[in-house]
């Protein structure tokens, strides 16, 4: 029966080519536009560490003075050196890492290369197991290297490619800001997006090329990169004593109970610091997990969200357009449908016949929309935004495109089909 309806549908569609083309075009445009923007949204609001993100938390404290004090204000996003090292040493979480961004000059030993700058991450050892960072060669450093400010470094696979042609470089020396550091590991494929652990540097795009112990970076006076928020007499400064927040602190808490306990610990710590006179404000702490953190930081650009609304509006207009055209088309075939009813076709049969026809339009429109989405995403990738190179259509979005297109046009076909098969057959026959 389905094959017969399909044949009828194709025949009917062929009869009025211009109108069919119009409906297909409308669906294709609507689907193409919304899939383009939804893909961008999907990529940008994705989970950077699936399976792990619910265990990772970004604790926030409020060490500021009473200037600009507003009750209920959010605490700063980063921590001071003193609080960071205190929380790190307290070891109250399953894992914890204190880190900050940096920028270092790499001086390749090959004379053909000019020195160049590479973004760096100065962090404590738990960074690697906590975020599940994969290694291609070698390994990460441990607590011992942190404690002794060892001259060790881990590099990204991209930097390894650039400097050593992709060969196992662990054990070799890397000249960095005039210091020689031993490479102990090369990362595997590691590019979490958004760049959740430090949104001060860049929300999307390239990750760091060089990772070294935070203690080592401080001993070598390496340059800090990223935001520093200061109060009182603090300049834009990243020193150990300045009243400035400039480090990121992340913890892993394996159960909700541990998270609750850690929250309690943070309140207690703030209270203690207030008693000591270091904190002036009442305890004001937050403990957001990774996805809540991204949401709070509004990491998805406002423009992208706006574009998604725009595209959905556009899809709605295209669907209304298609409903109108289908209604006109089906009602115009009243005579033909009347004959089929009079010959014994049930309403149900008529209804499914017409729905098959809308489904065919949807499928063709969806394929067109898919091509438009590919074109749209190609255009997005040519945009200057730093997230642009990440935007690709994955399998799930591909499937969603087709499902959305067929679903939308079936939906658009329901009303016209329902109206059309409620035509009284006798009336139609008589008017002929």
């Amino acid at each position, binding site marked *: 029966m389905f094959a017969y309806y399909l044949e009828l549908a194709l025949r009917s569609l062929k009869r009025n080519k*211009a*109108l069919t083309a*119009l409906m297909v*075009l*409308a669906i294709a*445009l*609507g689907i193409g*536009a919304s899939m383009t923007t939804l893909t961008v949204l999907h990529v940008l609001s994705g989970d950077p560490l699936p399976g792990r993100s619910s265990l990772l938390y970004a604790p926030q404290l409020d060490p500021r003075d*009473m*200037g*600009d*004090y507003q009750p209920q204000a959010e605490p700063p996003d980063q921590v001071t050196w003193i609080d960071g090292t205190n929380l790190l040493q307290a070891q109250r979480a399953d894992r914890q890492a204190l880190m900050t961004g940096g*920028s270092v*000059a790499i*001086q390749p030993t090959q004379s053909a290369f*000019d*020195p*160049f*700058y590479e973004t760096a991450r100065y962090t404590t050892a738990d960074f690697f197991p906590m975020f599940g960072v994969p290694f291609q060669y070698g390994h990460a450093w441990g607590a011992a290297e942190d404690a002794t400010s060892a001259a060790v470094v881990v590099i990204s696979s991209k930097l390894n490619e650039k400097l050593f042609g992709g060969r196992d470089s662990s054990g070799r020396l890397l000249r960095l*800001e*005039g210091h020689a550091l031993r490479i102990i590991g090369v990362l595997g494929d590691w590019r979490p997006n958004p760049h959740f652990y430090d949104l001060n540097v860049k929300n999307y795009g390239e990750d760091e090329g060089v990772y070294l112990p935070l203690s080592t970076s401080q001993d070598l*006076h390496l340059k800090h990169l990223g935001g520093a928020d200061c109060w*009182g*007499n*603090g*300049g*834009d*400064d990243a020193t150990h*004593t*300045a009243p400035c927040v400039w480090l990121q602190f992340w913890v892993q808490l394996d159960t909700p109970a541990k998270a609750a306990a850690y929250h309690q610990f943070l309140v207690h710590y703030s209270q203690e610091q207030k008693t000591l006179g270091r904190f002036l404000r009442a305890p004001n702490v937050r403990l957001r997990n990774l996805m809540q953190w991204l949401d709070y930081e509004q990491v998805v650009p*406002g*423009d992208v969200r*706006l*574009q998604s609304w*725009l*595209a959905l*509006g*556009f899809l*709605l*207009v*295209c669907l*209304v*357009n298609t*409903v*109108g*055209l289908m*209604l*006109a*088309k089906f*009602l*115009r075939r009243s005579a033909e449908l009347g004959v089929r009813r009079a010959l014994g076709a049930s309403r149900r049969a008529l209804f499914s016949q017409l729905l098959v026809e809308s489904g065919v339009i949807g499928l063709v429109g969806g394929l067109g929309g898919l091509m438009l989405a590919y074109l749209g995403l190609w255009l997005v990738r040519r*945009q*200057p*935004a730093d997230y642009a190179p990440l935007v690709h259509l994955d399998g799930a979005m591909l499937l969603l495109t087709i499902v959305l297109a067929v679903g939308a046009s079936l939906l658009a076909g329901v*009303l016209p089909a329902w*109206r059309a098969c409620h035509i009284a057959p006798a009336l139609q026959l008589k008017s*002929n």
Partner: protein
Amino acid sequence: MDIRPILSTLHRHKITAWLLILEIALTCGIVCNAVFLINQRLQRMDIPSGIAEHNLLQIKFAYVGDQTDAYAQAQTDLATLQQIAGVQAVALVNQLPLSGHAMSNSGIKLRPHQRQASLEVASYYGQNLLTTLGVRLISGRDFQPDELIDLKSVLPALHGGELKDLPHTVIVAQAVAVRLWPDQSALGKTIYFGNDIPMQVVGVSAPLARPNMLQMGAQNSIVFPIRLTAAEGGSYVIRTNPRDREQVLKSALAALKRLDPNRVVLEQRTYDELRQDHFQDDRAMAGILVGVIAALLLVTALGIAGLASFWVGQRRRTIGVRRALGATRANILHYFQTENFVLATIGITLGMLLAYGINLFLMLHYELPRLPAIYFPMGAITLWVIGQLAVLGPALRAGAVPPVVATRSV
């Protein structure tokens, strides 16, 4: 023309008519807001920087290793740059208007012990800043050479609260002066920074845009008499004739590299390129919005045309009868035009309400201002015109139906 017969016909095609009205309303609502968004972007991109944009070049370096003699190096660099043919002035500044990255912002307080800052401003500093950038002084004076203090002594003084090593004077941009002292002269007034560090206003400059966060007051900037070095993040800014920019940039880079080969060029561009970069997202967004508006209007026009040709096809017999009873081609043409006008008007009315609703949503979530009233009549006229153009083809075909059709069955 009597519109009663039109209304009664439309009454028989209620659903189709309402769908068309809905489509026009949605299009109207979206297009009004999209045009408004474009306008907002264009306005943003038009913000005056206040500096001699087409005359300026920026060169920024990073240094490998510690720079112990950075201040001596900076003076040598500036003197060398000044010698290059075509160079009118050179400066070493911490940041530039509309450069996107703010290195430095300050809160201004009007009284000591004031809890909250009265105004958040972008702070500029550097050597020879106003002259090179071409920022005019409206009143007061520029900094004297002996007022300039090195950044390396300012930072420790700031932490220690040591007033001796901090600047005592400041030049404020006009917007700041007007905001803080609406009815008085700003000259001679004292303002406070951080934990009550006093500074006296010695000059008021013409507008000077901030590097970013334009929503905090695009022209709220101040200038401190602080000297810094390229190793501390400063950029060399060269003023030249727009014609010579390429040549001067090349010679300047070569000269600076010759002085110290151990530096890495981070930035080398004209100010025009800097401005272009700063607004590239806005430009891209405006482009997308133009595309969406065009596509929406096209789809709506095609929808109207498609539906109209259906109605014409469906009513061929009726048209034939009317023609046989003496209706002229023009009568038939006007009938369809009026019908479209009626539908469009209902759609536009609903569309205005929708446009207002969407604008409220945008105001709530995207900090957009209220939609100016002028957008409503403009939107209405656009959709009326599009509706009439779209219906013209089918209506002309309807007018061409010969009266003899009335005598045929089907």
